[in-house]
């Protein structure tokens, strides 16, 4: 395969590896010694040793690649390679490294070999998160005009993050009380679980009175969805989850990691920039019986397009007909319309029909508790006994994930929702936040309609609801928004209105019109 001189060079190189002490890791290795000179290690032996005794394919091929890579190296360097030469060490750093296996002991010399042994050589960079990556790019931009419409996090008119007053008050109360920091039970803070279920279903709802809801505190929406996904994987092996096209990007990651198969149902109609209702219904109908249908309770992410009440009824009809199970993701209760009750009407409609359902909740947006990771998974069952059993299994899933959930956010929610004065104050703040978004939508619509000479219908901006708007801009057009106008958004054409101020609406309108009409 290789010439004798090439092998000599290669073994010389391996010998260099033996002596290279640029790393602090030392391993002892026993190597065969020659009779004539017991202190001279025949240089060919380490190479042959490595090539023959390394068992795994990966290492063998890496070894070969080391050898073959050594060949061009010798081409570039006429003459001998120097001990500790920088080229040699940079080569070492570039190539994958093998642990030299020591499965047999041959001889009598203990040679200290500098070995770079990492178990995880083959680990490559994970793909960057598309949504969080937008904020990173925004931070790196120095333009004065820049606008971050990426992450769905609420900003004030001054484009500052907003800590709700009720949250500050609750935290002060907690600081004064100086409560302990003991472990919560696996299912979470009891006071929190009680108020979160009541907030979702309404305090007097039969599902609560009959104790048919299994509620377990989770780490915001993501954590709650993951608990549910694990439950599905364990108890409904092979069952599919149907997710809308498009949906929040992390939904797919969650179900993939939980090993739950999923498929998509049509949702967004680019032609109308609205709901493809017929497509949605027929896809749900076509799915195998007993599938889980993931629905956004309100303020669909990323499109902002919600079904009407009549459409919700029809969706419930087809789900019942096909014996599917509805699985709601409620991340924006209160943020869509400004009313906590109105935003829960889709979930309540299904519950009122006596259906069993799953609901994941998040307090990241509506209480601004993004960083505290507070949410819940609720499973509405047909009986209190079933709910008790399901709750016990959810706990069993949570215990080997994180043992018990974090207290701080749970206490804040329990204090705010459980105290009538704070609760009312929260409702007011909620209306203000949702109200600001509605005003921004109106201003953006007005600006677009006024500036756009082509007569495009921009009314979808008013029809859409919640933090996000699907503009209908393509990937290329979205890139133009960023590259030319320093407007940061996700490539699917989604803008977060929570990051838009009234003052910037005109600028944004200009950017959208330019991207829409002048870029294809």
């Amino acid at each position, binding site marked *: 395969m290789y010439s004798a001189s090439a092998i000599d060079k290669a073994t010389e190189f391996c010998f260099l590896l033996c002596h290279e002490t640029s790393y602090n*890791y*030392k*391993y002892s290795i026993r190597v065969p010694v020659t009779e004539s000179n017991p202190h001279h290690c025949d240089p060919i032996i380490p190479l042959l040793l490595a090539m023959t005794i390394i068992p795994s394919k990966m290492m063998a091929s890496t070894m070969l690649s080391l050898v073959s890579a050594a060949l061009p190296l010798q081409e570039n360097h006429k003459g001998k390679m120097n001990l500790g030469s920088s080229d040699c060490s940079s080569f070492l750093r570039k190539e994958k490294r093998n642990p030299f296996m*020591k499965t047999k002991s041959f001889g009598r010399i203990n040679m200290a070999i500098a070995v770079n*042994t*990492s*178990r*995880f*050589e*083959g*680990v490559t*960079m*994970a793909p960057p*998160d598309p949504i969080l990556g937008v904020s990173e790019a925004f931070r790196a931009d120095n333009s004065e005009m820049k606008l971050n419409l990426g992450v769905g*996090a609420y900003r004030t008119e001054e484009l500052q*993050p907003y800590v709700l007053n009720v949250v500050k008050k609750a935290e*002060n109360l907690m*600081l004064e009380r*100086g409560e*302990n*920091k003991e*472990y919560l039970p696996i299912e979470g803070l009891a006071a929190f679980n009680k108020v979160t279920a009541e907030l979702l279903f309404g305090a007097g709802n039969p599902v609560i009175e009959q104790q048919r809801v299994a509620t377990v505190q*989770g780490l915001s929406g*993501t*954590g709650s969805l*993951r608990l549910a996904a694990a439950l599905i994987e364990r*108890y409904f*092996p*092979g069952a599919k989850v149907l997710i809308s096209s498009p949906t929040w990007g992390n939904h797919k*990651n969650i179900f993939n*990691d*939980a090993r739950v198969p999923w498929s998509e149902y049509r949702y967004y109609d680019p032609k109308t920039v609205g709901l493809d209702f017929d497509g949605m219904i027929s896809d749900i109908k076509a799915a195998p019986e007993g599938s889980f249908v993931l629905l956004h309770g309100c303020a669909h992410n990323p499109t902002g397009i919600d079904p009407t009440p009549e459409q919700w009824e029809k969706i419930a009809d087809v789900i*019942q*007909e096909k*014996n599917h*199970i509805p699985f709601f993701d409620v991340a924006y209760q209160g943020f869509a319309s400004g009313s906590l009750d109105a935003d829960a009407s889709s979930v309540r409609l299904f519950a009122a029909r006596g259906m*069993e359902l799953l609901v994941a909740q998040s307090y990241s947006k509506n209480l601004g508790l*993004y*960083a*505290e*990771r507070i949410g819940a998974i609720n499973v509405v*069952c*047909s009986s209190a006994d079933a709910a*008790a059993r*399901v709750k*016990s*299994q959810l*706990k*069993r*899933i949570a*215990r*080997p*994930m*994180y*043992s*018990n*959930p*974090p*207290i701080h*956010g749970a206490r804040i929610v329990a204090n705010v929702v459980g105290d009538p004065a704070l609760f009312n104050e929260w409702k007011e703040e909620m209306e203000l936040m949702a109200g600001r978004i509605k005003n921004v939508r109106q201003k953006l619509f007005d600006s677009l309609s006024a500036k756009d000479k082509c007569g495009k219908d921009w009314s979808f901006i008013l029809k859409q609801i919640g933090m996000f708007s699907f503009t209908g801009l393509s990937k290329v057009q979205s890139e133009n928004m960023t590259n030319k106008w320093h407007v940061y958004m996700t490539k699917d054409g989604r803008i977060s209105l929570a990051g838009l101020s009234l003052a910037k609406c005109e600028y944004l309108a200009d950017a959208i019109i330019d991207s829409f009409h002048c870029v294809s």
Partner: protein
Amino acid sequence: MQRRRMMIKWARDTVRRRFMSTSAAAIDWWDHVGHAPKDPIMSVTEAFLSDTSPNKINLGVGAYRDDDGRPVVLQCVRDGEVKIAGTEFLESVSASVSSKLVEESVKLIYGKEADFIKEGRFAGVQALSGTGACRLFAEFQRRFYPQSRIYLPIPTWSNHHNIWRDAQVPGRTFHYYHPDSKGLHFAALMDDIKNAPDRSFFLLHPCAHNPTGVDPTEEQWREISNLFKVKNHFPFFDMAYQGFASGDLDKDAKAIRIFLEDGHLIGCAQSFAKNMGLYGHRVGCLSVLCVDAKQAVAIKSQLQHITRAMYSSPPVHGILLVSTILSDPHLKELWKKELKVMANRIHRMRSTLHESLKKLGSPLNWDHMTNQVGMFCFSGLSPDQVNRLVKEFHIYMTYDGRISMAGVTTSNVSYLANAIHEVTKFG
């Protein structure tokens, strides 16, 4: 078998549902979902809470109690809370806060002068306390070594088995505790390490082994490390009690530092639940040592990828607390003092209980009570004896005879000694 039964039942139910009227009341989807077995450790506390006896003692969960039997919030934590009150921060834990926590956490374990910290040759991420850190590593192990197994000591914290199982990494065991000597079964331990296939993944408790309190000596750790080198095993440390074993943070990290000197590229789960009393905040750290900074970046990205699909980002409050305390010299000193106080109280209770049992004329040898280290004592009590303690004396502990010394106080130690003597005096 169980799973197949479940699938058959589910299939049958699905077929059954086809023929049910759609206007019927709620279909029972969850019929085939049974009651999960109670968690052996958490259920002790639950039973304790519902007991109305005035003499009841909770020796179940390893959560520290002061000499009045009350949970403790450390002063350094209270001061930290005041310091961070009103801190406003962006949506997810800001990069600077996270990296501060990770930086300070790894310095604690590895020593602040460790080379690879300076050179960035480690991948560190915050985790949901020790459990979260172990689970994160288990998922990572599965992803990159799908055929591998985890070797767990006999016995170990019961949740270790659950964690690796749910991550779909099969568990194996190795000998650790010697029930006769109530100490370390060193020969069997070394044999098991030797007989395991090369390049196996091992979980080790660096100090204050849970549940036995039995730790290898320094010499024994050196031999273990050496054998690991020969076998090329991957050492994964679960450090849940740093500072709690001896009262000294560096001393408690000795085992890990020995492995580092020997050149192992280890993984380590770290928890601030016990040593900072931040149980409910779920603050911890996972670190994996790497060959170079580039690999560290790649591994970190993979770990974050796993967390993104589990809970997106960790809760900020605890992280802010820990990074504030560790980076403020005054608060850090205060913390070290308070750690010593906690560790000393545990030592005192061990000696007191030991003395009391001797004074009562117990026929058994209770030396292990003071030989063992950390929060837990593996008493050697049988399940029957434990049952008697629960039923007759309202003393709660796990059925493996594990006593959480943190639950022993000056006022209950005599009662406890008497009760133990009662159930063991006849052997």
